[in-house]
């Protein structure tokens, strides 16, 4: 392994890390602005122009707040909970291709930290780990509301992962690959998977809402019932870590959805644009298209959050087990039949 390769990868990791952090931080700002816009309010506008420094102010505040660890709480697990949540949320973005290979200083650089050939399985593994942050934090708090939030979180994530996995299987039948890089390449130009898998996408979308614990699936937090759910007892930056993890998860799941179903960095007439702009600027347009799509998805998450009420616990389970899983299985069967018929013709 040569040094140049290592440096290249480390640089890419750092850049991606910074981008993820920035997007997560500004998602909090955007969330407040979007909410304000939808609710006829102004939103944050004191810190900087349009309140753009608000995330920094919030972050600074979180750092300097008093850390409170409740008596009777398991201290180490109490700290481990938010740390794990934050850590696992960062891992997801490693396998996502953010653009075509780009030519920089006479070198071809792939805009993907690593192309694991089972990238989708990796994402699933990492996302499932995320629920441990909630469970450990909720359990270690020594608070019944936290515990209930943790239990809700665990059962919700496990139930929805099944439907999510099944919806992906249908996609795999179409694409025949588990690698994100190949997935992105297959969707060249306008051949986005959403055209072949509309139902699968809908199931995946609903499950993504559930996995990121966003309204209407925010039962683990559920402010009006469980006070704050699993993060009731958290203060200062540990609370911030949970919040941050939620926004990073939102970013990662938006990126995954874009890559799986909405063509990733691909856009119609990209060949002509690439030919026009050359190997450096062409892929950069693709990168901006990718981030535009991600931002649209993040906006969609927020739009839903400020519009609909949340489910009740049993309705959530009903939706997961009795609606989404049968639908996903039906989707697999239909996809398989269609593929077989098309192949025979």
């Amino acid at each position, binding site marked *: 392994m040569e040094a140049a390769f290592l440096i290249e990868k480390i640089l890419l990791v750092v850049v991606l890390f910074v981008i993820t952090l920035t997007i997560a931080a500004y998602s909090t700002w955007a969330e407040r602005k979007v909410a304000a816009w939808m609710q*006829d309010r102004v939103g944050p506008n004191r810190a900087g122009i349009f309140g753009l420094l608000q995330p920094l102010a919030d972050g600074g505040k979180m750092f300097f707040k008093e850390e409170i660890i409740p008596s009777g709480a398991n201290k180490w697990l109490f700290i481990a909970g938010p740390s794990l949540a934050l850590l696992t949320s960062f891992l997801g973005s490693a396998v996502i291709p953010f653009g075509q290979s780009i030519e920089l200083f006479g070198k071809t650089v792939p805009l993907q930290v690593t192309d694991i050939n089972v990238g989708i399985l990796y994402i699933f593994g990492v996302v499932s780990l995320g629920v441990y942050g909630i469970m450990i934090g909720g359990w270690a708090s020594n608070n*019944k509301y936290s515990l*209930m939030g943790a239990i809700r979180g665990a059962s919700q994530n496990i139930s929805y992962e099944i439907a999510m996995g099944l919806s992906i299987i249908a996609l795999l039948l179409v694409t025949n690959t588990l690698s994100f890089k190949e997935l992105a390449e297959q969707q060249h130009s306008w051949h986005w998977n959403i055209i072949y898998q509309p139902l699968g996408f809908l199931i995946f979308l609903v499950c993504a809402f559930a996995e990121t614990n966003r309204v209407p699936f925010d039962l683990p937090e*559920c*402010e*009006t019932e469980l006070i704050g759910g699993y993060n009731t007892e958290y203060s200062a930056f540990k609370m911030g870590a949970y919040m941050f993890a939620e926004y990073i998860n939102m970013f990662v799941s938006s990126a995954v959805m874009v890559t799986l179903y909405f063509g990733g960095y691909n856009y119609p007439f990209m060949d002509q644009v690439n030919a026009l702009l050359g190997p450096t600027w062409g892929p950069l347009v693709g990168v901006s298209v990718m981030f535009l799509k991600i931002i649209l998805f993040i906006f969609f998450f927020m739009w839903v959050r400020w519009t609909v009420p*949340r489910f009740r616990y049993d309705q959530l389970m009903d939706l997961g087990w009795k609606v989404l899983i049968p639908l996903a299985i039906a989707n697999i069967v239909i996809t398989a039949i269609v593929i077989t018929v098309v192949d025979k013709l």
Partner: protein
Amino acid sequence: MSNFITEITPNRPVYTDNDPQGDLTTLNLGPTHPATHGVFQNVLQMDGERIVSGVSTIGYIHRAFEKIAEHRPFYQITPLTDRLNYCSSPINNMGWHMTVEKLLGIETPKRVDYLRVIVMELSRITDHLICNGILGVDTGAFSGFLYLMEEREHVYEIFEEICGARLTTNIGRIGGFERDFNDIAFAKINKFLEKFPPILKEFEKLFNRNRIFIERTSGVGAVDPETALSYSWSGPILRATGVDYDVRVNEPYASYQDFDFEIPVGTTGDVYDRFILRNEEMWQSLRIIEQAMEKLKKEPKGVFHADVPEFYLPPKEQVYNNMEALIYHFKIVMGEVDTPKTEVYHAVEGGNGELGFYLINDGGRTPYRLHFRRPSFINYQMYASMSRGMLLSDAIINMSSLNIIAGELDA
């Protein structure tokens, strides 16, 4: 002591983790919980998410209003009534004034009645706005609440124009109002009548046919009319069960008989019915206000109180320059006015139900005994037994839709 409870009986929860409770756990819902919207507690015994039994604890903000009222002249009791259901203070104020008027046999001019109706219906709207908005918040949909809060602000601006205060209004006096509505107040009412319907329509669009909202609320906290009546329920939650009892129609006061309006009734008495019913009542309130504004045009201008010099404080200029006014001012303030030795009960349709004032008078300047029939207090009695078998989420939205106001619950 810990072996006190040998077996778990309905509605008899264990209070500490040391008590034997099998697989069940005790959950303190309140006194400070985001969903209680005030200070009151429910000790619930939970089987996972399901409530096995519960006990309501009230009295956290009990301020002994009934006792304080025994030491205050009639006109000084109005501010106490402000603090009962503070979401619709003007109704409480008016109810109290009308009780005293009933005691003294005062006939108020029609114009005063119509002005009162306007104020009362406006505050009914604010009350229902809060209740339905908060129900939205408790189900997780926050935006509708803020749409409505803006409108409540406009109503509060009207109150501000009429009496100078917003929340605890102390609006009106025995016999009428302390001053006439000014032109700005009328302009603001007209503007509200114009601006509010589209907002309410938007709010209804957001909720009424929202699938998640319907699933969350329908069938939750359903009560049959017999049970509701046996618990002496009143107001929107009683009408949601299908009983068409409304004090405004059954025992009209303040010339409500002059108005043409409908009393919406529900069928199942569940949270969804209560929600729809409150929305519908707001439409009816708007109708009443519109009619009252029309009727006011036909009434003589400048009449804003009944002619009862021995109870209605004269204007200060007259007190300084006019002997009769000075005498009445002295008599009112010093409590030298004779009042009939009798007892009266007067009820108004408050935001949550029948708000009654039972006044026993011994002829002095203060009531001998005054009892407030507080709808929140009475409606809340069923809460613990209703919650049995519910999921925690259901119990919480059920509480929101009962519209329990801590100030009125504890008095």
